[in-house]
């Protein structure tokens, strides 16, 4: 019964999405206020039925109703309750419904928030959102329905169960945060589209979406970082980023969105770059949809290998339709998009922003190129050539370093034109610090990119500190405040600016962490109890091996005593080899899994994997990796989140 209700809710939502679009299009023709109100309420009704469908599916997952195909595929009676809920986004149809659910939350917020605001923009905003909802409703209604009954002529007593790799807290929250980011860009896109329809592309639409954009950007960033963190903790290859097609799929919209976050500041302040901002938001949104396509179509083989499905062509057509309609509309509106002002000088804040924007887009293109290289090479040369991480690193490291340099240079440039005197005044200290840093790193024996990257980190940090110091000094002189009061007031008066600087600081720390990758060491070896081996100056002694049967798996546990070259005790590591579904009589259905153990410090991580066990001879096969500075990446991530929160914190209404 309830599954039918879920399906019916999706049907109704689809119907209401059509009605919303029709009534609002009539409103834009006739101007009858009643039609606008109807449209508004119809749009809330779409979301309402989507909520109902979502709650029904999550309830069915919780009570393990295996009559629903989706529930039987992704959960079993033993699945812990938390992962029963997270199974909502483990599979295809569920995750599409979940996407729709988030979109409906955002649509509801947008409609309610703007009930009495932006009357000119709202009709087309609602239409755009309703069309996106309609697209996902078509998918969940007609292509992969999450409420499909189990297609079997027997009673399903227990379900498949969730992949153990996904039974992890990070994995339960990583997809939703990424989705919040992906879906979040629908709202700025809707406003942009509406501005185009209304022939008003000045800064009005930009003001109404600034915070939305930051929220979406924040979630996308957190989603990406959590994904890396999960890969590092669970997958056991010792890294957090592999340039996998699906990772790239989330990174590309992040790059264009980051460019957008920067360039809207110029449109807000100077009413410049109208065309450019339109292009960026359209690109960002289509890349979000394209990302879903890459993840779901099976075009690319990747660790995220989802099976091929009928969704590919549908998504691709949707991407093309959005691009054609939006860019076509931009072409029609090209006269309205002409900005009234022009760039004045190369050494201005505007041109700094423009440069940074171009580099972001260039990087996005480079990632796009590498991700689709197999497709291009097959089309051109007839051979499918895949490119691996070395390719992406080679191409992106220089681009990334240019971006890092611009992070430091941009904020020091003045609007319109920077005079020679102020150029010298602003840049002397940061450049000197960078040079001193470079000298020290060269003296320590580092080479090439490592020196460039680390000294740029010093340079950028110095610029950020000068900015803060200058602001504080101005206030302490003027208002006679203490340093902390001055800092507090300065930041709260100009949240977006100083929040932005804090985000920059987070990025710098992440770059320090990325640079550490150049010094990674790894070794694989086998040990019996009492034996030991060396990796990167550390000694690993196997002191114990034990076994344990736990609720949903069986585990072999090794215990390694780690000492440094002087024999000083560092830590004990306990990586495990586990077998999930170990009671399954069919050996092939049991699933082995290596649970790793990491000893982490600011300086380096010692990463241990128990790759296999030879029970007869009591031999443990161990893989050890020593990864310097990884922790800086995560700390940088926290700072990035903190800075973004400051930047988007609402002002007191005054």
């Amino acid at each position, binding site marked *: 019964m309830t599954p039918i209700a879920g399906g019916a809710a999706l049907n109704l939502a689809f119907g209401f999405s059509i009605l919303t679009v029709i009534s609002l299009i009539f409103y834009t023709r006739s101007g009858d206020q009643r039609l606008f109100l109807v449209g508004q309420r119809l749009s809330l009704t779409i979301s309402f039925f989507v909520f109902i469908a979502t709650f029904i599916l999550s309830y069915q997952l919780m009570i393990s109703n295996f009559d629903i195909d989706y529930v039987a595929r992704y959960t079993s009676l033993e699945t812990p309750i938390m992962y029963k809920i997270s199974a909502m986004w483990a*599979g295809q149809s569920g995750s599409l419904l979940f996407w729709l659910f988030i979109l409906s939350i955002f649509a509801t917020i947008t409609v309610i928030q703007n009930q009495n605001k932006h009357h000119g923009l709202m009709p087309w905003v609602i239409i755009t959102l309703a069309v996106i909802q309609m697209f996902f409703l078509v998918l969940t209604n007609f292509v992969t329905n999450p409420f499909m009954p189990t297609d079997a*002529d027997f009673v399903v007593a227990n379900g498949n169960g969730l992949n153990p790799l996904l039974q992890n807290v990070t994995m339960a929250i990583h997809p939703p945060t990424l989705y919040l980011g992906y879906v979040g860009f629908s709202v700025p896109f809707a406003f942009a589209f509406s501005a185009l329809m209304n022939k008003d592309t000045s800064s009005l639409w930009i003001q109404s979406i600034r915070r939305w954009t930051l929220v979406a950007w924040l979630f996308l960033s957190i989603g990406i970082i959590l994904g890396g963190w999960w890969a590092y903790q669970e997958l056991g290859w010792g890294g957090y980023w592999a340039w996998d097609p699906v990772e790239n799929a989330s990174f590309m919209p992040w790059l264009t969105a980051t460019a957008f976050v920067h360039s809207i500041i110029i449109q807000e302040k100077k009413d410049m770059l109208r065309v450019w901002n339109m292009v960026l938001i359209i690109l960002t949104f289509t890349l979000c949809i394209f990302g879903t396509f890459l993840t779901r179509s099976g075009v690319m083989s990747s660790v995220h290998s989802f099976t091929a499905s009928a969704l590919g062509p549908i998504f691709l057509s949707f991407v093309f339709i959005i691009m054609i309609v939006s860019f076509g509309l931009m072409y029609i509106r090209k006269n309205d998009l002409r900005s009234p002002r*022009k760039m004045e000088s190369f050494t201005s804040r505007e041109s700094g922003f423009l440069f940074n924007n171009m580099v972001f887009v260039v990087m996005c293109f480079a990632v796009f190129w590498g991700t689709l290289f197999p497709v291009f090479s097959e089309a051109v040369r007839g*051979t499918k050539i895949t490119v691996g991480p070395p*390719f992406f690193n080679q191409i992106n490291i220089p681009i990334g370093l240019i971006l890092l340099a611009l992070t430091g240079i941009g904020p020091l440039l003045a609007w319109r034109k920077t005079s020679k005197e102020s150029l010298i005044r602003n840049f002397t200290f940061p450049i000197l610090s960078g040079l001193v840093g470079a000298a020290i790193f060269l003296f320590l024996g580092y080479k090439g990119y490592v020196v460039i990257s680390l000294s740029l980190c010093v340079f950028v940090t110095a610029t950020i500190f000068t900015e803060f110091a200058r602001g504080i000094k101005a206030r302490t002189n003027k208002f006679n405040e203490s340093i902390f009061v001055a800092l507090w007031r300065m930041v709260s008066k100009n949240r977006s600016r100083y929040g932005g600087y804090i985000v920059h600081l987070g990025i710098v720390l992440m770059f320090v962490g990325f640079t550490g990758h150049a010094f990674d060491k790894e070794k694989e070896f086998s040990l019996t109890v009492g034996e030991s081996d060396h990796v990167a100056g550390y000694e690993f002694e196997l002191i114990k091996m034990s076994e344990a049967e736990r609720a949903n798996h069986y585990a072999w546990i090794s215990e390694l005593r780690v000492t440094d070259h002087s024999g000083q005790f560092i830590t004990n590591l306990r990586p495990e080899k586990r077998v999930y579904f170990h009671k399954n009589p069919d050996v092939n259905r049991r699933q082995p899994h290596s649970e790793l153990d990491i000893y982490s410090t600011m300086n380096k991580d010692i990463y241990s994997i128990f790759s*296999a066990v030879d029970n007869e001879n009591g031999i443990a096969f161990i893989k050890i990796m020593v990864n310097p500075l990884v922790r800086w990446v995560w700390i940088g991530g926290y700072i990035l989140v903190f800075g973004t929160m400051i930047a988007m914190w609402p002002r007191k209404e005054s």
Partner: protein
Amino acid sequence: MQSNKKFMVMIGGVIAVVIFWIGWVSSNPADEKAMATFVSVEQLLDDNINKRTKLGGLVKDGSIVISETNYLDCTFILKEGHTELAVKYDKTRPDLFKDGAEVIVTGQYLDGTFYADELQTKCASRYEGDLRDENAYNLTEIDT
């Protein structure tokens, strides 16, 4: 107007540099592991391709042999359709590597053996569970 033209030139210059850079890296990868050609096992054997390639296929049942002296040394037979190929791999094997697993290997073919340095397994069976696969379910069938 003048300054706008300058900016256009600058933007054009940046784009030219970037296209050159991407093209250059694409044709001169710094690391030999940067690129691999995806071919079928049959194609590899027919053309005797000795550059870096990527192959996909199934692990032939019962073909995995692990060296007695070094647990990491492993050989197996990769099957794609009816074509078979011996593969040698000497690194930590993924958890899901076993008989019948769908794998992607990257490496080099030399004198009848494929020396792989990357081995990826696909885990389609649990991620997108196959409904018709009754083993997946612990079923209790009703008498009909």
